[in-house]
């Protein structure tokens, strides 16, 4: 039965958008926790922690996200775990986001001037106190802009999970296209929905970066 593209179609797409937002949220939380641990391990850990993390980051950053998604989807099911597309999508997106967030935050930690580390040392702070009170608060302020910027990439890249059949916004678009045969309307609406979510984030990220640059210029 061929439907016409109308109000019901938009509601259907909106449901997909909610799944996109949900997956992006899971990815950001899980990838954020792991990414933070990896970033700390990569900057402060001993060589036996630093090197495996570096290899992990390098390999994931050199593999297409689509391949990571396929590996999670087929790989885990062959290992005897049957995972629904949502689980495979969340796992692969987390693997991807961890590698990037760890690298972004490593850069932010290293961007805290050397003098701050030395000052903390000479004040007699212990290693964890130095991190807690001196380095991380400053690294955090540097990190907000790039992190918000990376959230845009997470939201956009959840679209790749459509290809393993996870019904998020893009997959909802292809399904709707099969029902309506109006690809131009369908995918324009899909693109517009992504834009409505991503553009404010991009804009905010730019503002945060500008503000930081203005601050560092004033100091």
């Amino acid at each position, binding site marked *: 039965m061929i439907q016409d593209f109308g109000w019901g179609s938009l509601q259907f797409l909106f449901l997909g958008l909610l799944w996109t937002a949900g997956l992006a949220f899971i990815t950001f939380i899980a990838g954020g926790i792991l990414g933070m641990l990896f970033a700390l391990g990569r900057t402060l850990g001993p060589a036996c922690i630093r090197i495996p993390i570096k290899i992990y980051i390098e*390999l994931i*950053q*050199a*593999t*297409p*996200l*689509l*391949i*990571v998604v*396929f*590996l999670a989807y*087929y*790989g885990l099911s*062959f*290992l*005897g775990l049957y995972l629904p597309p949502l689980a495979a999508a969340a796992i692969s997106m987390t693997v991807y986001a961890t590698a*990037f967030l760890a*690298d*972004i935050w490593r*850069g*932010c930690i290293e*961007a805290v001037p050397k003098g701050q580390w030395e000052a903390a040392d000479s004040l007699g702070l212990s290693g964890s106190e130095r991190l807690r009170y001196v380095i991380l608060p400053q690294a955090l302020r*540097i*990190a907000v*802009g*790039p992190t918000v*910027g*990376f959230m*845009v*990439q997470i939201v*956009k*890249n959840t*679209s*790749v999970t*459509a*290809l393993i059949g996870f019904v998020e916004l*893009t997959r909802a*678009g*292809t399904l709707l*296209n099969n029902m309506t045969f*109006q*690809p*131009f309307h369908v*995918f*324009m609406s*899909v*693109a517009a929905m*992504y*834009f409505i979510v*991503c*553009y404010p984030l*991009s804009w905010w990220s730019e503002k945060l*970066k500008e503000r930081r640059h203005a601050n560092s210029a004033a100091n």
Partner: protein
Amino acid sequence: MAYEMNFAPVLARAPELIDGAIATIELSAKSICIGLIIGLGVALIRFNRVPILKNIAAFYVETFRNTPLLVQLFLLFFGLPFLGVRLTATESAIVAVSLNLGAYSAEIFRAGLDAIPKTQIEAGLALGLSRLQTMRYVVILPALKVIYPSLTGQLTLTLLGTSITSAISATELTLAGAKIESQTFRSLETYIVLAVMYIAITFTFRAVYTLVGKWLFRRKVPKASIVAATIMDEETSQ
């Protein structure tokens, strides 16, 4: 139930995989050439604040950077025929990937142009350099050096992004893999082989960027940084 890996059926199809890899490299190279030209043009329009054109350029950059490549592909491949423009899968792939890179590299080029202070150009001229020499040694090379990590990182993202074009069955490595996967039922093995091939291609491309950088800048070589490209921030990611 333990699963036994068997790579033989996948490796038996090596010629198809190699053809796929070549197609991926070809698709990436074409898109990179077209994309960088678009990016440079758009950056110059925005830098020189050309009226009207600059608004179109801003609209282009923002729409392409804030929507997924996969949706852009679907729109080009499935949507355009309804407006009377029919492209093959591979043509759609080149157009979409180029336009995507164009939007990202335009922002990177603009950052490079902004990085060169006007006084530095005046200083170059005052030292008796010709306009051409000033452009080359004072503007283009130093600006390129500033953006080199982001730019080459973005090119790597472009290369990896071509795998998504398999969704509209453009000929490239992931599609070749998908075909083998569906005929051998060795899904896990196929995608492990694909991952290894992509990693090899990416590292080769990165080595080329380092060599080109060495030749261009001769002294200190900035490292390709995929993260600098992702977050568009040179300072925190070197």
